[in-house]
């Protein structure tokens, strides 16, 4: 059995940043295990720019952002195994992986960082009757076809769901000569970044139909069209609003799901809202020595935040390893932990727990559940208000954060911190 101080599962931006940070903090033996042929994760197919503006101060494309981390990795003695799939995390932090060269690998790890990213919600997750015609695929699959394989999957396109990948693909396919008829969004607002709505739809005159969905697909063999309909406030199609739209391709951009099969199998506690592990301020999960970061923990829209979060996990893992496993798990311990709660319009928070004896300011990330204008973000603990700031606009598609100060954490009387929204007086 091989032995490593740190095993990182997944070689996307999260895994790479976490490994590099752990190295910088003094961890000796580190290995990254990546299922694909190359490092970089989803970034390899995200050829549009908009990555790294805050981290590098430059507007990079996905591959360029990844390249910088790959180059950094090459300068270190961090081991990397590509084409290697992790299949199980056993008790005692033993990582089981397989590849064609080594067959089955068993690695004994002091600490593990989970950085498996997320995957797109497939068609099966939707309740959509119709033929099993070809031409229906996720937006990410289409992105791979166009950007990596140089092949256009269709000419007349309808996109269901206004997630970022769908918006990016609306522009990409239009630039390559396809006609994107419309983007249908079930909700009354888009789930994507405003930036992408402006640049990818408005710029090109592609209509965004809100409160609208695809209720049926048509065609045998190849897709010939879809029926769309408006929906009511309960998201049910409104009879009489059906419309047939001719198209040969339907792209689905209806959400991302953190890839947590390994995490669940290992018995780690999952947050039912984020679909990622419940973690403490160093991103340690309920299992001692197992950390999580990036899209496997919470779906991010900005890679800059992924990098930031992963460096925290890398630092946490390093502390854990260097103190030989003395630091504690993210689960509640002796009732002394501080629980971070989401309330009044805040859908979730990460991290969900903070160690009372922490040594850092804690940035709490959150998402809101609806569109809010001129609203205060308020953080309280017991009767004490720790933070209050007015926001002009909050949207579910954009992740927000607030920082809870170390000096506040140290002298909290209550075991709870609440992050909530308060509608402005004149808003």
């Amino acid at each position: 059995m091989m032995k490593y101080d740190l095993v990182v599962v997944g070689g996307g931006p999260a895994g790479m940043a976490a490994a590099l940070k752990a190295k910088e903090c003094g961890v000796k033996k580190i290995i990254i295990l990546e299922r694909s042929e190359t490092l970089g994760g989803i970034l390899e197919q995200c050829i549009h720019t908009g990555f790294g503006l805050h981290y590098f101060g430059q507007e990079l494309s996905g591959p360029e952002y990844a390249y910088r981390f790959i180059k950094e990795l090459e300068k270190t003695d961090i081991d990397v195994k590509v084409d290697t799939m992790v299949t199980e995390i056993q008790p005692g932090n033993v990582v089981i992986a397989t590849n064609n060269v080594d067959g089955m690998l068993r690695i004994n790890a002091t600490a593990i960082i989970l950085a498996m990213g997320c995957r797109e919600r497939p068609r099966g997750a939707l309740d959509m009757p119709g033929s099993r015609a070809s031409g229906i695929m996720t937006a990410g699959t289409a992105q791979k076809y166009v950007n990596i394989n140089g092949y256009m999957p269709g000419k007349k396109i309808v996109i269901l769901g206004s997630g970022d990948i769908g918006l990016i693909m609306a522009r990409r396919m239009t630039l390559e000569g396809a006609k994107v008829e419309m983007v249908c969004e079930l909700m009354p607002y888009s789930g994507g970044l405003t930036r992408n709505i402006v640049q990818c739809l408005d710029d090109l005159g592609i209509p965004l139909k809100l409160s609208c969905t695809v209720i049926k697909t048509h065609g045998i063999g190849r897709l010939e069209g879809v029926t769309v309909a408006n929906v009511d406030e309960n998201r049910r199609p409104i009879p009489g609003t059906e419309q047939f739209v001719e198209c040969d391709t339907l792209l689905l951009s209806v959400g991302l799901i953190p890839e947590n099969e390994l995490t669940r199998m290992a018995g780690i506690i999952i947050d039912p809202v984020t679909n990622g592990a419940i973690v403490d301020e160093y991103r340690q999960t309920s299992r001692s020595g197992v950390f999580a970061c990036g899209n496997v923990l919470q779906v991010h829209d900005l890679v800059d935040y992924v990098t930031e979060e992963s460096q925290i996990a890398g630092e946490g893992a390093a502390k854990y390893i260097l103190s030989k496993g003395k630091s504690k798990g993210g689960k509640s311990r002796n009732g002394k932990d501080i629980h971070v709660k989401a309330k009044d319009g805040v859908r979730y928070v990460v991290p969900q727990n903070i160690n009372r004896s922490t040594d850092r300011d804690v940035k709490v990330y959150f998402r809101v559940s609806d569109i809010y204008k001129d609203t205060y973000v308020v953080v309280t603990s017991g009767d004490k208000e720790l933070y209050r700031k007015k926001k002009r606009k909050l949207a579910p598609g954009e992740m927000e954060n607030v920082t809870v100060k170390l000096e506040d954490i140290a002298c909290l009387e209550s075991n709870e911190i609440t992050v909530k929204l308060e509608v402005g007086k004149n808003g």
Partner: protein
Amino acid sequence: MVKELVCVACPIGCMMSVEMNRKKEVVSVTGNTCKRGEQYAKDECTNPVRMLTTTIKVNGGSLPVVPVKTSVPIPKGKMFECMAEINNQVVDAPIKTGEVLICNICDTGADIVATNEV
């Protein structure tokens, strides 16, 4: 006149208010988090520009296409003209990240630069 605008210079997407005088000159920009926002607001109200990213066909590479971007943002109205030019070209492998593949595309002053290696 005040125009409400979302900064698209980076994915944060700050909401900005741009105040313009009668000559359509920008007097003030508020709501931006960084300097780029101010520049974006000025450009957007006078000469809107965008980064163009796409792929170019490659001969003899490990993959059939290589991703590229414009070295600087180009006028919004020139996007399709540039796309047509890029789709007319085939480049030979090997290609390195940062390599200039087309100089001064469609007289925009921007170069087409590879963003990955093939």
